[in-house]
């Protein structure tokens, strides 16, 4: 019996020893993933010969697997408002918003062509991982925070903060306002209108 217990203890310790370093490496692994993606995007941006439309296509192909646009759409609406939508409306919302978000992302990315990115150590926040970076352009430095969550086997971005302004929160405040005074139809109207402007 005693032998059995000590075997257990040894086993448990081994499990701890094996799993701890892997656990501690998670933030580094995520930071590496992000750096890899940003480097690829910058390479595309620096290519002077590539037409704008092709650049955007290339960039989207790079970032699409690591940014969870659909989850972001849900989070911007929030629990209460999400439940107000029928299933068909939810699907429509995701479709409209994801399109909009992608367009906005590409717009911002291509605006700052001469950027340099400085990486800071990634931090574990509960079961999420935050990677702070500084995007340095000639005029100013923006503090950008990429927030990752574990989506099964891989880590994906669910929010981005720029100088403390969370993308999810800033859309959320607008959706709240629109839905406080209007209907779901009004929301869709706004989503389409602004995207076409």
């Amino acid at each position, binding site marked *: *019996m005693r032998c*059995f*217990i000590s075997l257990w203890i040894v086993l448990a310790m081994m499990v701890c020893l094996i799993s701890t370093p892997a656990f501690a490496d998670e933030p580094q692994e995520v930071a590496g993933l992000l750096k890899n993606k940003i480097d690829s995007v910058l390479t595309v941006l620096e290519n002077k010969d590539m037409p704008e439309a092709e650049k955007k296509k290339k960039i989207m192909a790079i970032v699409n697997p690591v940014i969870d646009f659909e*989850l972001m759409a*849900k*989070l911007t609406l*929030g*629990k209460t408002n*999400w*439940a107000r*939508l029928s*299933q068909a409306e*939810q*699907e429509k919302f995701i479709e409209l918003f994801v399109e909009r978000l992608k367009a*906005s992302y590409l*717009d*911002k990315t291509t*605006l700052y062509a001469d950027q340099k990115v400085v990486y800071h150590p990634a931090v574990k926040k509960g*079961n999420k991982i935050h990677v702070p970076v500084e995007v340095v352009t*000639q*005029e*100013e*430095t923006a503090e950008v925070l990429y927030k990752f*969550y574990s989506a099964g086997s891989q880590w994906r971005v*669910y*929010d981005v903060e720029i*100088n*403390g*302004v*969370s993308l*999810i*929160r*800033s859309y*959320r*405040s*607008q*959706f*709240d*306002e*629109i839905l*406080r005074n209007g209907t779901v139809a009004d929301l869709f109207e*706004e*989503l389409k209108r*602004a995207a076409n*402007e």
Partner: protein
Amino acid sequence: MVLLTILVVSSAAAGEAAGHLKAALKAPGDTAEPRIGDAGETEFDAFDEFESAAPPEVYDPLIGYNRIMTRVNDRLYFWVLKPAAQAYGAVLPKFARQCISRFFDNLGYPIRLVNNLLQFKIKGAGVETLRFGMNSTLGIAGFMDPAEEGFQLAPSDEDFGQTLGYYGVNGGFHLVLPVFGPSNFRDTLGRFPDNYLDPLNYIRNTYVNAGVPVLEVINGTSLRIGHYESFRKDAMDMYILFRNGYTQNRKKEIEE
């Protein structure tokens, strides 16, 4: 060992019982086929950081005025500021404008120093002092920034609004200022002591006194054309986006 086993088994049994009880308590209507929303709700719980943003996130009794002033500022940008900055930018090369921008930044040293000290940010105050000393001399009266480029000394920007925030004063009501844009009661008050510390306000010549801030604004705008447009383009409700963005940004600045 045995005791442990019993504990594990009994807790599992208790969990199972609770599960049955839950199922029994469910109304018949609840067993309808699951909607996306049902799966989504667990997802929302995993990201509850966003749920904490209760709807009336900003106290905004002046919303009517604020919305109007946001429109006014927006027109002002497109009709006056942007054309002026573009004309100015066409005359002066970018490098010169960057120098002017750094010159004005350098003069803001007293504001940053005092507010760093008021918040006991000794390192920030030291860095600012080093920066001012280096940039005013080596950097030719602040036109260049050798402190950051050569010594990685980044500015530690603090203002009196942030100092008040540091001492627990909250923003009060949201207020959109003409020309300057989004602010709140606290940060608007904070502009007054900061003005006292601004060397530009000690120029005795009235024309120069009026002209210098205009130059500063136009110069700054000429270096950032496209930024406002790009931010605004994302808006579905421009005023709400700016108000929320300002509030989030100030919260971060104060926490730092």
